[in-house]
């Protein structure tokens, strides 16, 4: 068994002019990695088409301003390691035919972990398929998350138990849910915040617009977190939008918009935490864009070499967040090499065990097709005797 992690040892960033431009902050050794160029400056720069002008108004956040307590950093790192272990185990399970097609999120761990850390326990997360492991960070057994990909209704869970809505398949359609949930909680006297993940592809759907506008009109406590990984299956960002940064949409809703480096967990944490605070204190919704690159295929069935240069993906793979964060934590003296090896091993072995539990889950019965469709099934239906499948218990 491999250790299950592919942290990058050397900081071999090549300055490139493609899709997303990164540069070293301050010119010296990167501490918190990379901050995005001020968008206005490269938006106006060499060779950018005039249509990109509009992005000049996007606010930019430097990851370096957002250091946190060491304990938080370590917690964040452990969550990322757990996500990585889950993702790699899931990919393996798929290759072994133990689950069906699986949408890997390899490289997006910083965004997901930081977002979960930035919200409170009572806050809810609204997920796309690519955040399928986020409920695991909140206690869902991994085998139950995988049961979903095995086509087993036991993959379904009770959202209120984990503060996570189920992963949403139709793009952007969960964003209005986040708005309604947040407004609904506020109406009942709560101060909870909804955080909704969506992708660059999803940003083109009408529901993304309707949700952001509705949230801004109702001043709903919602954080819209866009994982802009530059790809929607085979569609590059340039074919998805005529702006480089989707945070440029925020101004049109009168809400703050910010772009952060999605490979920098502290930058994401800072931006999301600020947006969450603002939402909770009545300041309304925000749009946070975490820029990154979809390093893996769209899903296990996808062959990206059909539509993109995989050498580009390989370069981005070197920038993946976990190795970089570990290097930083080591430099700061919070982590030893041994800790790193042990944590990855622990996480990998927990996921291996979960995989075994998945194999032992009983096969669902046909009754489950109709058991939970309606609280009051019509008289013509056979009454189901199956209990609620809130969690898989073995």
């Amino acid at each position: 068994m491999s250790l299950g992690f592919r942290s990058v040892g050397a900081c071999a960033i090549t300055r490139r002019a493609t899709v997303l431009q990164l540069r070293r902050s301050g010119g010296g050794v990167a501490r918190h990695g990379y901050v995005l160029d001020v968008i206005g400056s490269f938006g106006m720069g060499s060779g950018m088409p005039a249509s990109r002008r509009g992005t000049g108004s996007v606010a930019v956040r430097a990851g370096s301003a957002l250091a946190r307590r060491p304990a938080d950093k370590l917690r964040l790192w452990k969550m990322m390691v757990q996500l990585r272990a889950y993702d790699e185990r899931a990919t393996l399970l798929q290759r072994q035919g133990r689950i069906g097609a699986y949408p890997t999120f390899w490289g997006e761990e910083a965004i997901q972990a930081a977002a979960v850390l930035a919200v409170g326990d009572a806050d809810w997360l609204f997920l796309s398929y690519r955040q399928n492991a986020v409920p695991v960070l909140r206690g869902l057994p991994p085998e139950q998350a995988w049961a979903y990909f095995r086509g087993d209704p036991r993959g379904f869970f009770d959202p209120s138990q984990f503060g996570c809505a189920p992963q949403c398949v139709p793009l952007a359609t969960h964003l209005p849910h986040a708005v309604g949930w947040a407004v609904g909680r506020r109406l009942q006297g709560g101060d909870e915040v909804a955080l909704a993940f969506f992708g660059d592809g999803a940003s083109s759907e009408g529901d993304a617009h309707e949700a952001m506008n509705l949230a801004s009109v109702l001043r709903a406590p919602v954080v819209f977190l866009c994982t802009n990984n530059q790809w929607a299956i085979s569609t590059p960002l340039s074919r998805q939008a005529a702006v480089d940064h989707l945070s440029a949409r925020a101004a049109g809703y009168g809400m703050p918009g910010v772009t952060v480096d999605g490979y920098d967990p502290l930058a994401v944490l800072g931006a999301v935490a600020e947006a969450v605070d603002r939402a909770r204190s009545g300041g309304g919704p925000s749009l946070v864009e975490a820029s990154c690159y979809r390093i893996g295929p769209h899903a296990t069935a996808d062959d990206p070499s059909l539509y993109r240069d995989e050498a580009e993906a390989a370069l981005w793979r070197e920038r993946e967040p976990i190795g970089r964060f570990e290097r930083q934590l080591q430099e700061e003296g919070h982590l030893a090499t041994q800790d790193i090896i042990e944590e990855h091993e622990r996480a990998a072995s927990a996921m291996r065990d979960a995989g075994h539990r998945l194999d032992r889950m009983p096969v669902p019965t046909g009754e489950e097709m109709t058991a939970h469709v309606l609280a009051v099934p019509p008289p013509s239906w056979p009454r189901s005797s199956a209990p609620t499948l809130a969690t898989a218990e073995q």
Partner: protein
Amino acid sequence: MTTPPAAPGNAEPVTLVQAVDAALEAELAADPRVVLLGEDIGRMGGVFRATAGLQARFGESRVVDVPACEAGFVGAAVGMCLAGLRPVVELQFDSFSYPAFEQIVCHLARYRWRTAGATEMPAVLRIPYGGGTHAPELHSDSPEALFCHIPGLVVVTPSSPADAYSMLRWAIRHPDPVIFMEPKRLYRSTRAALPADPDPEGLLRARVVRPGTDVTIVSYGPSVPTCREVAEMLAARGTSAEILDLRALWPLDQEAILASVRRTRRCVVVHEAARSCGVGAEVAALIAEHAMFSLDGPVVRVAGLDAPFPMFMLEDLYLPDPGRIVDAVEEALR
């Protein structure tokens, strides 16, 4: 700010749209989890005045005016259900349910299933529907069969003020999502006293509007009064027609339909929605599967054309009228 809605048990007869208003008021008052959402439902009280006075009484956070984004606010209603509320959404007109179709099919109808029963979706979508009001294009559609084909939804429609009141109160309390189709042609056509004590159990059952022995005319919503008229005409000619008002379009009251047609041995189904794959097809199919050999005549459908609802100068030709229904009864009696 506007005419106060009729109170339940009030002897004062009210119109169907006032009955809707009264039902909403009663449920808003009874349950703090009930929230209304819709375009122009607040200050204005809705384009049909079905929510008149409610924002003034219950405030802007329980009677919520929303921007023009049907998918967005139906989706928000799904989220409100997740937060434990019981949203009642007004879609301004029939055709404006189409932009919310994905939210209805993918989420409202499936969320309970997708959470293995852990989540309830007790939302109601109120949809004023049907023609006969001289309305502009796309303001006279009858999309109910679409919703009947979508698993996970309950689809109901009243045909009288009393039913509108009782059924809407029932729908708001029902734990599953209810598509509540309001026959806008009947909004102001008659008045009736509201029932003091609606029978919640009976509301998914078909109602015998008028008993008869020679033919069963199955209908619902806006066509029910037309069928009643036909029954009078037929009675004058010595034919006794039983009028069945389905009330629930999904699930169908299969027993009531089958029992009636087995008795009368003839059946006509009447609705104004398009014929192909409409509710009438489902009723006819039910009979073809379970009562074919009890029948002495074909099951005849009187429906809208398989053509867009026409511009209103022509709508009387499109809508099932007494003449077409009588012809169909004659066909069924042959």
